[in-house]
C-alpha cells in the first residue's frame, strides 16, 4: 500500500491489517501504524520494485494533492509514480491493483448532476492535480490485463475526524474569515465520509477481479447544498459558518487574480496565514457547481454500501473536535 500517512491511506492500511491481511506500507516518512514499512518515493522505480516483490495486491494511494505548485512535482509523483507502481506490479506478478484516483480527472468544469464515471481526460481536466491524476489513471487502467486486474477508484471529497485536507482547510479559512459562500450556496455536492471511503477501497481490493478495467466514483450518495456542507463542518468544529456571499462571476475574477498574485506573495513571505491561496479558479468551480454521482453501478459492482450517513459523520466530527484540547 502506497501513501499510508494520510487519513485515507492510514485508514485502509489499518482496516486491512485488522482483518488479517499481511500489509506493507510505503511512503516517504514513517506512518506510525506499527505495520511493515518501506520508506521511499513512489517515483523511485528501483525502490518500488523491491517493495512490491512478493505482494499479491497493491493499493496505490500516494499522490501530490494540492491546488497550486509547479507542474513538475505533480508530474513526478502522480504520473511517474503511478508508472513505477504499475511496472513494479507487472514485473513481480502482482494480481490486483487498486489505483486511487479522483472524480476531477473527468471533470471539465461544468456541473456534474448524477454523473457516472466518465473517461479520464488529461487534456480537459482542470488544474495540475486533476490533469496529472487523469494521466495516472490512464496508465493504471492501461495496464489492466488477464494477469493484473486493475480498478481505479475515485473517492469524492473524503472527510472525517483528523482530515487535513477538506475539513482542516475549511475550518482554518472560516476561522480566518476567508470562507465566503459562492453564489447561492445551493450547488449540490456529494462527499465521502472517511469510514465509507475506507470500506469502499477494501471492497475494491476484494472485488478487483469483477470490477477490473473500470473507473468507479465512490461517495456517500447523499449530496447536500455546498452552503449546508460548509456550515455543518464549521458547526462541528465550533467555528462560525460563512456569512459573506460572493457572486460567482466576481469570485471567478478575484480567483484569477489571486492565482496569479499568491505565488508572488508566498515568495515575499509577507504574510502568514492559511496555506494555499484564498480561492483559485478551480476551487471556485468546485464550490459553485453541482458535483454528485450515480452510485448504483459502483455499489452493485463492489457489493458495498456506505455505513455512515452524513448526520452520523458530522456527529463524529463534532465529538472529535470537542475531545481536542
Amino acid at each position, binding site marked *: 500500500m502506497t501513501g499510508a500517512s494520510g487519513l485515507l491511506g492510514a485508514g485502509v492500511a489499518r482496516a486491512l491489517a485488522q482483518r488479517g491481511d499481511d500489509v506493507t506500507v510505503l511512503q516517504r516518512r514513517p506512518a506510525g501504524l506499527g505495520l511493515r514499512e518501506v520508506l521511499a518515493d513512489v517515483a523511485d522505480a528501483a525502490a518500488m520494485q523491491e517493495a512490491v516483490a512478493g505482494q499479491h495486491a497493491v493499493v496505490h494511494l500516494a499522490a501530490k494533492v494540492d491546488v497550486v505548485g509547479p507542474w513538475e512535482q505533480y508530474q513526478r509523483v502522480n504520473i511517474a509514480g503511478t508508472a513505477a507502481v504499475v511496472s513494479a506490479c507487472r514485473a513481480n506478478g502482482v494480481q490486483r491493483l487498486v489505483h486511487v484516483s479522483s472524480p476531477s480527472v473527468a471533470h471539465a468544469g461544468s*456541473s456534474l*448532476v*448524477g454523473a457516472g464515471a466518465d473517461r479520464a481526460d488529461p487534456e480537459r481536466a482542470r488544474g495540475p492535480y486533476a490533469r496529472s491524476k487523469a494521466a495516472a489513471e490512464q496508465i493504471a487502467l492501461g495496464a489492466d490485463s488477464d494477469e493484473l486486474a486493475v480498478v481505479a477508484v475515485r473517492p469524492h471529497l473524503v472527510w472525517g475526524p483528523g482530515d487535513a485536507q477538506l475539513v482542516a482547510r475549511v475550518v482554518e479559512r472560516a476561522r480566518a474569515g476567508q470562507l465566503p459562500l459562492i*453564489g*447561492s*450556496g*445551493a*450547488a*449540490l455536492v456529494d462527499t465521502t465520509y472517511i469510514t465509507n471511503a475506507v470500506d469502499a477501497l477494501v471492497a475494491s481490493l476484494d472485488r478487483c477481479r469483477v470490477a477490473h478495467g473500470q473507473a468507479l466514483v465512490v461517495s456517500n*450518495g*447523499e*449530496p*447536500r*447544498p455546498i*452552503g*449546508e456542507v460548509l*456550515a455543518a463542518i464549521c458547526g462541528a468544529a465550533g467555528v462560525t459558518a460563512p456569512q459573506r456571499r460572493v457572486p*460567482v462571476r466576481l469570485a471567478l475574477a478575484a480567483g484569477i487574480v489571486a492565482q496569479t498574485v499568491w505565488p508572488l506573495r508566498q515568495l515575499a513571505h509577507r504574510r502568514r496565514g492559511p496555506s494555499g491561496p484564498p480561492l483559485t479558479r478551480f476551487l471556485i468551480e468546485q464550490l*459553485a*457547481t*453541482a458535483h*454528485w454521482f*450515480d*452510485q*448504483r453501478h459502483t455499489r452493485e459492482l463492489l457489493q458495498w454500501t456506505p455505513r455512515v*450517513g452524513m448526520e452520523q459523520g458530522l456527529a463524529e466530527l463534532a465529538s472529535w473536535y470537542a475531545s481536542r484540547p
Partner: protein
Amino acid sequence: MVSAADADGVSRTWHVLDNGVEPTAGTMLCVHGNPTWSYLWRRFLTVAPAGWRVVAVDQLGMGWSERLQAPRRLEQRIDDLSALTGALDIQGPVVTVAHDWGGPISLGWALAHRDQLAGVVLANTAVHQPLGAAPPGLIRLARTAALRTAVCVGTPLFVRATTALSRPQPPEAVRGALAAPYRGANRRRSVGDFVADIPVEADHPSRTTLDAVAAGVEDLADVPTLLLWGPRDPVFSERYLRDLLARLPHADVHRYGRASHLVTEDAPETAEHVWRWVGDLGGRTADQADAVAAAPPEPTQGSPLLPWAALEARAGDPAVAVAEVVNGKSREVSFAELEHRVRLLAAGLHAVGLKAGHRVALLVPPGVDLTVAIYGCWRVGAVIVVADAGLGVAAMGRALRGAGPDLIIGVAKGLAAAAALRIPGRRVLVGSTSVPLRRALGSDFSLADLAELGLHADLPPEPAADSDGAVLFTSGATGPAKGVVYRLDQLRGQIDLITAACRITPNDRLVAAFAPFALYGPALGIGAAVPDMEVTAPGTLTARALADAVAAIDATVVFASPAALRNVRATRGGLTPPQRAALGRVRLVMSAGAPVPVSLLRAVQELMPAAEVHTPYGMTEALPVTDVSLVELEAAGPGNGVCVGRPLPGVTVRVSPLTPDGRADGELTAQPEITGEICVAAAHVKDRYDRLWATERESSRTAGWHRTGDVGHFDVAGRLWVEGRLVHVLTTADGPLTPVGVEQRVEELDEVEAAAVVGVGPAGTQQIVVVVVPAPDASAGVRRRRPRVLAEPALAASVRAVAGVSVAAVLTIEALPVDIRHASKVDRARVARWAERVLAGARVGRP
C-alpha cells in the same frame, strides 16, 4: 440511387432512402413535399419495426434526384411514383406516408394501388383548394411569377422559409440538411415549378387531377387513415384539416399542439406514433389482447335514456328548474318552460343547418341560457364544446381552435373573445337582440332569433345514444389542456352515477358552484340554482351568495369547488341569521376538482351542520370515481397520500404497479399497499381524447381501462389513497417515490405554508428535494419579500426531521406555480426544472 423510367418513358435517376428490409410485414412509402426531401423521414427508418421495408423517395427535380428541364405536373408526378415503385419491386401491403404537396401525389398513388393499400398517413397537407377561397398567403405570394422566380429559384428564401416556420427552430444541422440539395439556382428549378403547379385557378392544368384525387379520397372510407397535424402551420391552416376530416370522417387524428408546418421535425415523436398506429393495423396488439383478459366486469348497464330524459319527464311541471340568483333576487325558469325552450332552440338550430355531429362551442356563463343551449344542442345531436377561461385565455383559445367548432353560441364578451382568439365557426349571440351588436360580432342570429325560427320548424330525429355529446377540457395542470370526448350514453352514465351516489330524489334541489355540475340539474330532474359569482374564478363565491342561492330554491344539495368553499369560509362572517338558517337545511355538500383539506371540510360542516360533507375523487376523463365523507376521512387519519375513499357502485378501480424506474407497467391489481397508476373502468369514462390519437392510445392501452395518470394505492380497508401524478413520481436509487405523502408531512409544520417534493438528476438516481413556501413569520408579522433560496438551517432541519426520506436539499420559494382552474394543482415538473437549475449552481430566478 435508382434508375427508373418516368411517366413518359424517359429513364431518370432517383435518390431513394430504402432500408432494404425483406418486407414480410409490409412497406412504408414516404413522399415528401416542397421544398424538402427524403431526409424528412429519417426517423421513420431508424425506428422501423422488423419486417417493414421503408422507402422514402426524393421526387424528380427535388432532393438528390435528377434535375428536370421542364415543369412536372401533378398527374406526371403520380405516374412517376408508380413507375418508381414498380422498378423498386414494391409488392404486398403498403402504408403511404406523406407531407405537404406530397399528400396529393401519395394519394394519387394510393388510389391507383387500392389492392396493395393497407393504410394512409397524411401530415399537414391538402387535397382541395376551393375556388374563390384564398390559398395560403405564403403560397399566394410565392405564386406570382416574378416573385416565384426570385423567392423559390433565384434565392434560397423559400427553401429556408420552410424551416423558419418552426418555433423553436430546428437545430442548424437539421436546417442545413433540409436545404443541402437546394444550393444554387440551377438546383432549385423544380421548387418554383412545384409552387406553380398548385391549381389555384379553375383552368389550371393540374386542377382536374387534384379534383380527381379529392373525389377519390372519399372512397377510402375502408382504408385506415391517420392525420398528423401541426396546428401552427401558416400554410396549411386548420381549415385544411377540417376539409380532410370532412372527406375522411373515419380518420384517426393527432394534433401536435406546438408543431408548425414541419410537424415531423417539430414533434419527433411522430415517427414512433406512426409505427404504433401501423402496428395496430393488424388487429389488437399483444398487450391489448392480454389486457382483455383482465378487463373488468361489464358495468351495470344504465337505462338507455338520453341525458335529457329527466327533463322531458317533467315537461309540464311548473316547478323551478333553473334559477339565477343575483343580489338575492332570482331569475327563474320552470321545467315546463325550459323543456319548451329547448325544443324550440333545437328546431331552430336544425333549421339553420346544425346537424348531428357538428360541434358547438359554448361561451355563456352558467344559467338559464346556457342550460337551454346545452340541451338544445344535444337534442339536435350536436357536440357541445366547453372550454372555460379557467384554463387561461391563451390556453382556452388553443383548446377551442383545436376542437374546431362549427358554431359558437356566446354572450357578447364570449363572441368578442372568440374573434380575438380566431376560433372558427358561425356565431349565435346570447343575451342581446341588438342587431348592430350582433352584426359587429359577426353573428347571423341571436338565441331569440333561433327560438323564433323553431316555432315553425320541425324537431330533428333524436340522436343515437352512442353519438358524441361533449368535448370538455382537462385543466392542463400537467401539460397542455386536452380535449375529452364523451358520448351521450357516457354522459347519461355520469348522471346516473351522481344520482345514485348523492341519493338524489325528485324532492332535492341543487346549488351548483362547480362548472360541469352546474349544467346537470335538468338532467338529474331536479331544480338547480346558480349563485352570484364570477364563474371563471370559483374563489369569488361568497358565503352570502351561496346562502342566497340556497334560500332561493330551498336547496338540499350543494356542489362547490374547493376554491369556492375556501372563499365561503373566509366570508362566513357576513351571513345574516336567515342565511345561516337556509344553509342549515342543506343535507349534502360535495366538493371536487382538487384535493380538499380536512380543515376546510370541517369549516364547511360548521356552516352547514345538517349536511353530510363529501369529497368525491375523479378527473375530467371520469367523474366521479370514488367518494369519501368527512366522517370517513376523520376515521382514516393520516397516511401516504390523500384518502379519496372507496370506488362508487358501478366503478371499478385498479392500480398498475410502478417499475423501479417509475413506469406504470405492472399488471392491474386491487391488492392493498401496492402503489401504481390508478386505472378506472366505468360506464361514464370518456370515449377518447379529442384529436390526440397517440395520447388516447397510451391512456387506453389496457383495453377497457382508463389510465388516469394519477398514482396511488389501496389500503387494507379498500380505501384508495392518491399519492400524486405519475409524471411527478421521483425515481431515486432506492426506487420510485410519490410526492404527496412527504408533502403532507412537511405541510404539517407550522413554519411551512405549502410544499412540493421533486426529484433532481437523472431518472433512476434522482435526489429528493423539498421546495417550501415558508409561512408568514409570526414574530415579524410579514413574510420576507424574497426568501433565500437555501432554507435557513432550522427550517431545513425541521423538514428533514418529518420528511421520512433522505432529503438532499430544502429550498424556499415565494409561491408554487399552480393551475389557473383550481389554483391548487402544483406544476411539480416546473418546480423540478427550477430546482435542478438552482442545485446545479445556476442563478436562482423563478420557476
